[in-house]
């Protein structure tokens, strides 16, 4: 099948975008007091880690970081392509009263974020939850909007966004894959 690949971010681009988001978080939160970062597994967790180290560079303070596995909270367990595998959620601090920055790689329908919110409130009662995403590609199916966005990318529903991270894929880039227009019409 023919498809079109366009690069959206390269290694440096990704780094710059995360740095900018870190600055925005510091600005809006007036520092990093009471802040905690929680990434949605798998890729969101890595991006959360990077965001935390940028915040540390800026504010010279260590911020608690956690990772959330949302498999058990999905509403489409039987519809996803592969049978789900459950991974552990790793939050070793109390989230009650904290300002949480929830992090994911790509924001699409918003359903993943819905699962994450449901799961998060089972762990405690945060003061605030804000959403940070590397890519916002639109097509929301739920009333959810991000507070910090790395890059907005207008997409067609059938397009795919691929985020590659060195920890998982060996290289760093964000690609948009578009199905061939002719093919799509057929």
């Amino acid at each position, binding site marked *: 099948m023919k498809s079109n690949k366009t690069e959206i971010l390269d290694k440096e681009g990704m780094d710059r975008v995360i740095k900018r988001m870190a600055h925005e978080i510091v600005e809006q939160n007036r520092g990093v007091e009471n802040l905690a970062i929680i990434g949605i597994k798998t890729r969101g967790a890595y991006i959360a880690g990077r965001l935390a180290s940028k915040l540390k560079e800026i504010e010279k303070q260590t911020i608690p970081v956690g990772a959330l596995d949302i498999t*058990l909270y999905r509403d489409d367990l*039987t519809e996803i*392509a*592969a*049978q789900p595998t*459950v*991974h552990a*959620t790793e939050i070793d601090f109390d989230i009650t009263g904290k300002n949480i920055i929830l992090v994911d790689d790509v924001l699409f329908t918003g359903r993943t974020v819905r699962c994450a919110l449901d799961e998060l409130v089972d762990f405690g009662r945060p003061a605030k939850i804000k959403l940070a995403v590397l890519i916002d590609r639109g097509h929301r199916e739920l009333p959810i909007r991000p507070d910090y966005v790395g890059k907005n990318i207008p997409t067609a529903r059938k397009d795919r966004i691929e985020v590659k991270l060195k920890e998982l894929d060996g290289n760093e880039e964000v690609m948009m894959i578009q199905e061939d227009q002719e093919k799509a019409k057929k």
Partner: protein
Amino acid sequence: MKKTVVWEKKHLLGIEELSKEEIILLLDQAESFKEVVKRAIPKVPPLRGKTIVNLFCEPSTRTRTSFELAAKRLSADTVSVATSSSSFLKGETLKDTARNLEAMNIDMIIIRHSCAGAPKFLSECVNASVVNAGDGSHEHPTQALLDVFTLREKLKKIEGLKVSIIGDIEHSRVARSNIWALTKLGAKVTVCGPRTMMPAGIEKMGVKVTCDVNEALEGADAINVLRIQLERQKQQLFPSTREYVRNFGITKDRLKKHAKKDILILHPGPINRDVELSQDAADGEYSVILEQVTNGVAVRMAVLFLLSTTRQIIEQAQKE
């Protein structure tokens, strides 16, 4: 759309039918569920709207409670049927009972029965998923899984471990399921017990056989001590309880003399204290008996979750 299915079984009837990879998948998933069990609110929603029936035709505390908790922590609805107060007493057959239960739109049946093969029979006459919670002296798969899970958690591996199973091997479904699980994962298994409680041909399962308990302790990384079913005393399989204790009872003294210092002690419960296991050994520092019970819930959650998602995928495929 073709789905990648990692777990293809709709029922869990025994360890014998599982591959090494399937056992490892179950253990890995159980690890994730152990984290869920430790949460402040140990409840997650994946089995919401599913109904699970506990059909226990033999007494049980641990297994039944453990399955019920596992189901509830996955947000399933559970119903318990105890034979002492059910229509079994009026002579209803197992098949009729199950089909009636199924007519009430249930998704899974967890069954314990005194007849080997009852879960298999049930799986052939109902559409629900069937989980074997112990059938006669055949298998008790979730017990073996939680034993192996506990061993792996403590010793970080199974391959190459020396594990001895001590007690009434002949009548023990725990022994049989454990032998399957441990040998499939590459452990070296020794079984030990009185000659009268040793089934003929057991060595064909790939285990070493001995009637000398000290030999079974020698070099073992872990021992799984089975319950002596005192109710079988009527069959006179051993002359007296005292003699059994003298020859096979695991005591701190015996462990000191013959076992490795850091040997792990497992027991599927319920314990006959000071019969197969002495007071000081059962509550000693290397006993992981209560951890086994904790792990049991996580392991059973993994089993219920995998069976349920597979069943839903099969049903969806049939619709399409």
